[in-house]
C-alpha cells in the first residue's frame, strides 16, 4: 500500500509543531529515565520491544510514558544532542513525556489509534493532525479513518 491513500487521524495536541519521518512503534510504554540512553538515543530497557533500537529522528509511537519524572530531562538531553525523536505520538499522554516534549520542542499528539501505525510507515505530524502512509512491506494495508 506504499503508493496508496494515506490515513489521516486528528488527535489531541500536546506540543505543536510539524515533523515527518519513519515510524518506530512500541506496543509497550516507554520510561525514558533508565529506559533510553540519553547520550545515544538507544532503548536500553531489558526485554523492551524496542531494546537496541535508536529513537533519533523517528516518529516515536507508544501507548504512554512510565517511570521517573526525571525522564523529561532525558528527552531534553536527546534534543540537545540532536538525537530526539522527530515527533511523539501516544495513545494517552502523561506528564513525564508531555513535559519532556515541551521543553525539548518535540511535536507531540495523543489520542491517536496507535495500533493503526506500524514500524516503518511514513508519518507526518502537523499540529493535531497525523497522516500515515503504510510501508510497502506492512500487512494488508487496511486502514480505517
Amino acid at each position, binding site marked *: 500500500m506504499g503508493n496508496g491513500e494515506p490515513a489521516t487521524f486528528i488527535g*489531541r495536541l500536546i*506540543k505543536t509543531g510539524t515533523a515527518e519521518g519513519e515510524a518506530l512503534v512500541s506496543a509497550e510504554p516507554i520510561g525514558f529515565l533508565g529506559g533510553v540512553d*540519553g547520550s545515544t538515543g538507544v532503548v536500553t530497557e531489558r526485554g523492551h520491544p524496542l531494546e537496541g533500537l535508536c529513537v533519533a529522528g523517528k516518529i516515536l509511537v507508544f501507548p504512554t510514558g512510565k517511570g521517573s519524572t*526525571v525522564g*523529561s530531562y532525558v528527552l531534553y538531553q536527546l534534543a*540537545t544532542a540532536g538525537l530526539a525523536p522527530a515527533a511523539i505520538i501516544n495513545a494517552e499522554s502523561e*506528564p513525564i513525556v*508531555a513535559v519532556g516534549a*515541551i*521543553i525539548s520542542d518535540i511535536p507531540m499528539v495523543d489520542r491517536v489509534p496507535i495500533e493503526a501505525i506500524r514500524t516503518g510507515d511514513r508519518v507526518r505530524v502537523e499540529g493535531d493532525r497525523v497522516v500515515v502512509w503504510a510501508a510497502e512491506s506492512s500487512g494488508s494495508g487496511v486502514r480505517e479513518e
Partner: protein
Amino acid sequence: MKLTGEERDWLEGGAGPALKRAMEIVVALGTIYGAPTLIPVESVQISGVSYRNIGDAGLRFLRQWADEGARVRVPTTLNPTAMDMVRWEAQGFSADFADKQRQVVDAFAQMGVGEGTPLPTCTPYLIGNRPAQGTHVAWAESSAVVFANSVLGARTNREGGPGAIAAALTGRTGAYGLHRAENRLATLCVEVRARLDTISDYSALGAIVGRRAGQAVPYFADLPLDAVGDPLVEEKLKALGAAMAATGAVGLFHVADVTPEARAAAMLAPAYERLVIDDVAPGYASLSDDVDRVDLVWIGCPHASLREIALVAEALRDRRVQIPLWVTCARPVRAIAVEQGLVSVIESAGGRVFSDACMGIAPLHDLGFSAVATPSAKGAFYLRNLAHVAARFAPLEACIAIAAGDR
C-alpha cells in the same frame, strides 16, 4: 481549555519565550487531566533539585530557562539539594559535585526562587511557606504535598519538577484533581488497632497504608492523636503522610477530629473501602534489609523539625556515637537549633546536623556508605530505590542505639 486573554497571550509568546514555555506546560498538564480552566496559585514548591538526579541535562535546561528570562510570579520554595550547601566537604562530596549542585541552586536563584536566596528543604511549611486552609498552591515534593493538603487543608496536586516551575512562572495551575472539592472525599477508611507510640510508628503505619491506598484518599477513623494536647502531633502527621506518599501515590488524607477538613465535615465518600491495621511491625520489616553492619544513621526525612532535633539531642546527651549520625533539616531550623544549644549537644556526641541536604537523593556509594539506618519509612524507601543502598527502618531509639554501638 478556557483561557483568559492574558493567559492566551502568554501561550502565544507575547510575554517572551520563558513564559510561553511555562504556559505550554501548564496548559498541557491541564489538558491531560481535563481541567476546564486555570486557577491562580498562592505559592509553589519546586522539586528536581539534586544534581545527582537531574544530571547535566537538567542543569542545562534550568540555565536555559533562567537565561530566557524565567522569573517566578508567586512565592516559591525549593526542595533539598543532595548536600549541605555550606558543609558539603564534611559530608565527603567532591568539589566537582559541589560546583554542579551550586549551579543548579544558582539557576533557581536567578529565577527568583526563595526571593533569590533559596533555602533548600522538603519542609517549606516549617520555614514560612505555610498556605492557609482552602488556598490553592502548586507543590511538588510528595511529602510536602500531602502535608499541605491534609494537615494545612490547602489544595494542591502532586506536581512534578518542571510542572511546578511552570506553575511558579505563570502563577497558575489547572483546575483539576485535588483542587476540586469533590475529589477530596476519602475513598479508603482505615481503622487502626495497632498501638502507636513514636513518630516512626506513624511512619510504619503509613508504609502499610500507602501500599494499599495507591491513589486513594485515606480516612483514619480512630487514630490516638490529640490535636491540642500532643506536642508531636504535627510530626506524627508529617511522618504518616510522607510514608504514604512514598510507598503509594497518596496526596491527601484525613484524620477524624484532627485534620482541618475532617474537623469541619464528614469527609468519607458515599462509597469507600475498609482497611484494618492490627500491627505496624510489618511496616518496619517491609523497609528493612538484613544487614550485619550499618555505616550511617540518618534522621530527618522529611527534614527534621525543631522538636525532632530536640528528641535527638535528648537521646544523645552524655553519649558518644560510633558511626556517623547525620540529622538533616532546613537551614533556618538549624540556625534556631544552634541558638538553642541543640546542635552542640548532638555534635558533642559525635553526630552532625546538616542543612539543605537529603541523603535519599545523594550519591551515597560515592560518600562511602552502603547500609543506612533511619526512623523514616520514606527515607528507607528512597535509600533503597534511589540511592541503592541497604536500609534499616527502625524507631529513633533503635537508630540511636545502633549509632552508639549498643547492640
